[in-house]
Every structure is written in C-alpha cells, then in structure tokens.
C-alpha cells in the first residue's frame, strides 16, 4: 500500500461523507431550534427520488437539486406542523415520516429503476487549488455539490455563533420561555429550523442519485439518515465538528470498499457493516464522555413549548 492508496481513500472519504454532511447540517439546525427530526432518512429518500426524476425529465441537474430540496422541505413541513403546531410526539412523528418517505419514494421510483441519468455531476477540479500536493487531490477535484458543502459549513457556523439571528435560533433550542419573553417567535424559528433541515436532507439525497451513485435504487440511502442523526450528537451540535465527523464516517465506508477491492480475506458483509458498527461505538464513546461534562445538547431538545404551561 502506497501513498496513492491513502490519497484515494481520503478522496473517497470526502465524496462518501458529503451526503452525510448535508443531512447532518440540516439535522443540526433543526435540533438547535429544539426539534428532533428522526425523519431525515425519509426526507433523504424523497429528495433522492425527486432529484433523480426531475433530472431524468429535464436533463437539468440544478433543477433536480431544487426539486430534491423542495421535496425534503415539504416532508419537513409536515413534521414541523405535527410536532410544533399540533404538539405531536417528535419521535413518533419523525419515525412515521421516515416510513412514509421510504414508501413514497419507492412508489415514485418504481419506473426509475435501471433508468440512466442523462447527465451527472462530474468532477470539476478547481483552478490552482487542485494543483496543491495531496490536499489538491483530496479536496479540490470533486463535483460542485462538494464545493457547495465546503461553503455551507462555515456559513452555518458563522450564523450560529456570530449573528444575532443565529443567537435567537440557539436560544429557542436552549430555553424557549426565555426566548419568548424577549419577543422571539419560538414557533416561527422552529418551523424555519425544521424546514431548512429537511431541505438539506433532500439535498443530501440528491447527492446520492445525481453524483455519487448515479442511479435510483429502492432504499438507497441505506441508513445514512440515521448516521447523520448520530453524527450531530458526535459533533456536539457544532457544524465544524460535524464536517470532520462526516468525513470520518465517509472514510470508514470508503475503507471497507477499498479493502474489498484489495481482496483481503474478510467477508464483504463485515466490511459493509463498518460504518454502522462505528456509529454505535462512537455513540457509546460520546455518551460516556458526556456523563462527565456537559454534552452540549440543546436544553429544550424534543420538548414542546407552550407559553401558558408553567
């Protein structure tokens, strides 16, 4: 194994990590506003099929991305309506939406299995940056959606920590009563958090069908939505750490794939299990750590807010 092998794994880690990153950033925003969205998996699938369908029909990738985000956002709106306005249990609603998203994407995608995509997101090396040794290859010879995610991470970070609107957002997730008392519209903030979160989950799905795969398969997210939710905990609700986490998980997935190619005598099933086993290990580790110090979870995560409640 030479350096080319490692560079190849790192490069693959970025592409495999990008859908996780989008979905995790979306979930992070929703959770920061205090709403747990377990429908990410469903929203990714709906986004994936909507993006694929649109691009097959129009041969336009960006239209595909837009419709994927629309589809994810629409499903997230349902979650927002049920859990914020109707005060349904967020866990139950989220699970229901994942099941619903899986079903409806499979229904819509019935005729799309095996259909080739007329056009895909292809790697477009960035001038100058891609010439850098190692870093250029690993980070700057990807498709435009990867570059977009590079921009999104600092954007979310600056939003949450350095803008007043972002502060309102965090305050709603920490203590909605305190936010309400100073005139912040708690429900509006939560709606925005959940819907943007769903749109990013949709985008994550589109990345699978328009760049990574690029085909449509039933249930092709294969639990990536769940890994994204775990990632948010792993990242202690911090977008920068979510980025590292996403690439770490991407790397684990890529490693399994490469080892398979190298023909090591390990069952491919075990290798495919790696990201999920890794998820469990990471969660155990983070939870264990969290017992000693504050985990950083939004204090009002998963709780309804009602002004008249005492």
């Amino acid at each position, binding site marked *: 194994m030479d350096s080319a092998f490692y560079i190849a794994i790192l490069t693959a880690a970025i592409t495999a990590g990008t859908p996780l990153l989008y979905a995790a950033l979306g979930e992070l925003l929703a959770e920061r506003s205090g709403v747990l969205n377990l429908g990410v998996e469903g929203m990714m699938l709906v986004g994936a099929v909507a993006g694929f369908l649109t691009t097959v029909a129009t041969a336009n990738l960006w239209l595909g991305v837009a419709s994927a985000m629309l589809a994810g956002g629409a499903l997230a709106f349902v979650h927002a309506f049920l859990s914020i306005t109707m005060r349904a249990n967020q866990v139950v609603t989220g699970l229901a939406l994942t099941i619903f998203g899986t079903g409806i994407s499979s229904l819509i995608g019935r005729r799309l299995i095996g259909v080739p995509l007329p056009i895909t997101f292809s790697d477009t090396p960035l001038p100058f940056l891609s010439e850098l040794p190692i870093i250029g290859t690993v980070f700057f010879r990807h498709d435009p959606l990867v570059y977009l995610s590079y921009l999104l991470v600092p954007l979310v970070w600056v939003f949450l*920590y*350095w*803008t*007043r*609107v*972002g*502060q*309102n957002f*965090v*305050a709603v997730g*920490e*203590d909605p*009563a*305190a*936010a*309400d*008392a*100073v*005139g*912040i519209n708690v429900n509006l903030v939560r709606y925005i958090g959940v819907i943007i979160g769903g749109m990013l989950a949709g985008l994550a799905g589109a990345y699978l069908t328009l760049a990574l795969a690029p085909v449509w398969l039933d249930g092709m997210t294969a639990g990536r939505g769940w890994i994204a939710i775990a990632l948010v905990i792993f990242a202690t609700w911090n977008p920068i750490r979510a980025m590292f986490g996403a690439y770490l998980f991407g790397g684990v997935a890529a490693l399994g794939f490469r080892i398979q190619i190298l023909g090591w005598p390990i069952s491919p099933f075990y290798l495919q299990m790696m990201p999920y086993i890794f998820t469990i290990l990471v969660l155990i580790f983070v939870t264990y750590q969290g017992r000693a110090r504050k985990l950083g979870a939004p*204090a009002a995560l998963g709780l309804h807010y009602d*002004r008249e409640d005492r």
Partner: protein
Amino acid sequence: MSAGATLAMRKITKRFPGVLANDRVDFYAQHGEIHALLGENGAGKSTLMNILTGLYWPDEGEISIRGEVVNFRAPRDAVLQGVGMVHQHFRLVRSFTVAENITLGMRQEGFWWRPQVVEQKIATLAATYGMAVEPKAKIWQLSVGEQQRVEIMKMLYRGAQILILDEPTAVLTPQEVKELFRNLRQLAESGKTVIFITHKLHEVMAYADRITVLRNGRSVAVREKAETSIKELAHLMVGRELSPEISKPPNTNQQEILRLEGVCALNDRGLPSLRNVSLTVTKGEIIAFAGVAGNGQRELAEVVTGLRPITTGRFWLHGQDVTSCSARQLIDAGVGHIPEDRKGMGLVPNMAIMENAILKSYRDRSVCPGYWLDHKAIRQRAEQLVTAFGVKTATLDSPVRLMSGGNLQKLLLAREVSAGPDLIIAVYPVRGLDVAATEYIHQLLVEQRNQGTSILLVSEDLDEIFKLADRVAVIFEGQIMGILPIKQANLDEVGLMMAGARASEVALG
C-alpha cells in the same frame, strides 16, 4: 392622583375558564416610587402584571402609560413602551453569557453579534445604576441574586421605565434582599417606576412607598406606607384577622430520635452535595433547616428517608443503626416524609384520593387482609382522613391531580401523620399555599410536635422558621454552618450563615 399617574390600569377584567382572575381592577403607579402589589396566591397579582406586560389580553379595561392609551398584543410591544418584567422564574438562557442574555432578541442591535460593543454598553449602564454584573460570565456560573440582577439589567438595557418584579425575594438570602432593594431604590430615585409583587407583609413595610392590595381578583385598597400597618395590611389581604400565635409549650425532652454522624452524599449529577453532616434530633422538637434552595436540603431529606445512598458516615434512629436501611424499612421504623414535590413524589396525580391515602399501607392487614385489597376498608380509612384533616373534595374517586395545592398537601399530611410517625421530614411544606392553608399546615405540624413527634423542617422562609422551629440549622453548600436554639438566633445572623459564614464567625462579628 389617577390623572397624572405614570401608569394607569383602569377597570381591568380578565376571565379564565371558570375563574374571574381580575375583576375591574384599578391600579395606578407613579414614577420615582416603589409600589408593592400585595395579595395572596390566586388574588390575581400575576394575571394583572401579565396583562401589563402583554402576555395576556384583558377582556375589558384599558391601560395608559404617561397619559397615552396603549394596546399590547405581545411582550415585545410592552417592552417598546418601556415596561419590563422580571419573572419569578428567571427567563435566562443558562448556557449563554450575561451580555448575550441582556441583548437577546433585540432587533435594533444589528445583524452581527459584537460582544465588545455590547459589553461596553452594559458596563456603562451598570455603572450608572451601581449594579455589579460581569458581562462575560455564563448564567449558570452566577448565584441566584446575580441572575436576578442580570434580569433587571436586561430590562434597563431595553429602556424599561416601568420595572415589575414578581416575588423577587422568594429565592434570596436576607443580605441579597437588602442589596436588591438598595438597587431598586436607586432606580426609583432616577425616575423609574418600580412595582413588586409579594405576599410578604414585612417586606412591604420595609421597602415600599405605596401599596395596592388585591383580594379575590379585586383591588381592595391603596395605602401610603406611612399611613398603614402590618396588621391593617394583613387584614386587607386575607379579609379577616389572622389567628393568634400558635401555642408551643417548651420542650424539655432530651430523648434522642435521630442522630447523623459525618454523613456525605452525592446529588443527581454525582457531585458532593452533603459534606460531613452531623446532628441530633430529640423527641418532640422541630428542627428547621434554613438555606437557599439547592444547598443540599433535598439530598438530606432523601438520605434520612432512605431514598439516597450515603457515601460516608452513618445515622441512627432510636439508637439503631439504619445507615443502609431501605425506604420501606425506614417507613416501618416511623419516618414520615412530606416531600418537596408533592405531586410527583408525595402523591400519584392520576390515582384517586382513596388509592393515594393508602399508598404506604397496602401491606397493612387492615386494608389488605390477603392477596386482595379490601376496598371497603380503604374507603373507610380515606373517608376518615378526609374528614379529620378537612380535605375539600366531592368524591374519593377523583384523581388527586384535580385538587388544589392546599388540599393536596392536607391529604399528604393526613396520610403521613395518621401513620403515627416518630419523625416527620417536611420539605417546603407550605410552598405555593395560600394563607389559610399555610396556617392550617403550620398548626398541624406544631400539634404533632406537641404530641411528641420530631419534625425536620426544610424551609427557605425565615418567618416560617422563626415561627415554628425550636432549633435552626443553617445549611450552605451541603455543610451545616451552625445549629442555634431559635431563641438565641436572629435574622441577620441566620442570613449571613445562609450565605456561607460559620456560626463562630458570625458571633465574632
């Protein structure tokens, strides 16, 4: 007078389903004064102030500020008109800094979060009003008194001219109370209107300029402080004379009931919360634990009732080592418990009065002779308790969550007292109760004492402690700062100890 008032609320009426919370209430306040809004729980004080701050809409009536009629649709509107409220439970984001909390949600602060600019402004404002706050500190690092100061600063920063404080002294030590009113006086002198909601009479007489008394949703009187007395205010507030002092014959019994030696325990977060607690409780005495909430009182009560394990130390009941006894063994040994959380730990809210009445005695042959519960006997016993303790209820089968706080507490006490305990642990037994229920509970506790039951009373209210206790133990950060016979204790001394001074240090001055 009402014509030139800074704040005028006229004929305010507010109905909630089944309740007339405010009934044509008039309320006027001037700038430069500290105005007390006095009344019992449920008199409509908080409703009135929530209307003033835009949280509720009045059904009838109008509010005018500096002569102009205003119409608040949301708290933000009230803030823009210079009305700021400091709630009893602070509305602060614990993980945020002081500066972040003070400016939270202010649109006029611009798009970017600029800590230096904000901190500078806060420092200037703090200097103007002589209030010390550290803008960079996180809320969770601050004491309750400091957090309250942050809440006040938050309102001042938003340009509050009318400042309302809901039960501001409930969680403060006597020293912090003095500091608070020193600050409030300075605000009033600078031309602001300060309104505080309270039911504590001596506080009103010590710090207010004028007093409006509410009773049953109506404003019954407005008094200048100089023209009134505690007695008159009490009469106005309750609507009748308070019953005379509870008779408490001196206790000469020296028989030891409970002894703790070097007890240490952890709190729910696994941090030390009781440090080396030693004390002895004798037969027929009320020993009160004074302290600001969260200094280990809850853990102490749980240790003595067998609900919380001890890390080191031992304790004895009737001379028998019960250190590792379970809660059930301690109940059988004669320990009664009136927990802080009466609806969560004391009673099961969704179960009927009958069932709650026998929660601790279902092993008793009289209500459960074999495998089955004897419903007839249970009903009889519940009926006895309800009658004997004056619990108001239509039926014995309704879930207890429908009962008022006072009735809940009576039922809980009835159950615990009827078991004939030798020791009762009572944690904040009158918190949230109205004057009549409070009196009743106090009476009951003293009667129990007079009959020879020892009572370990946890309270934040020094008036209650001085009224009931034979001895007072002050607890601070899990340590006992000193134990004094109540006759030798004074308010200032106990207050200093609550803030962490040792009895020996206090005595030396």
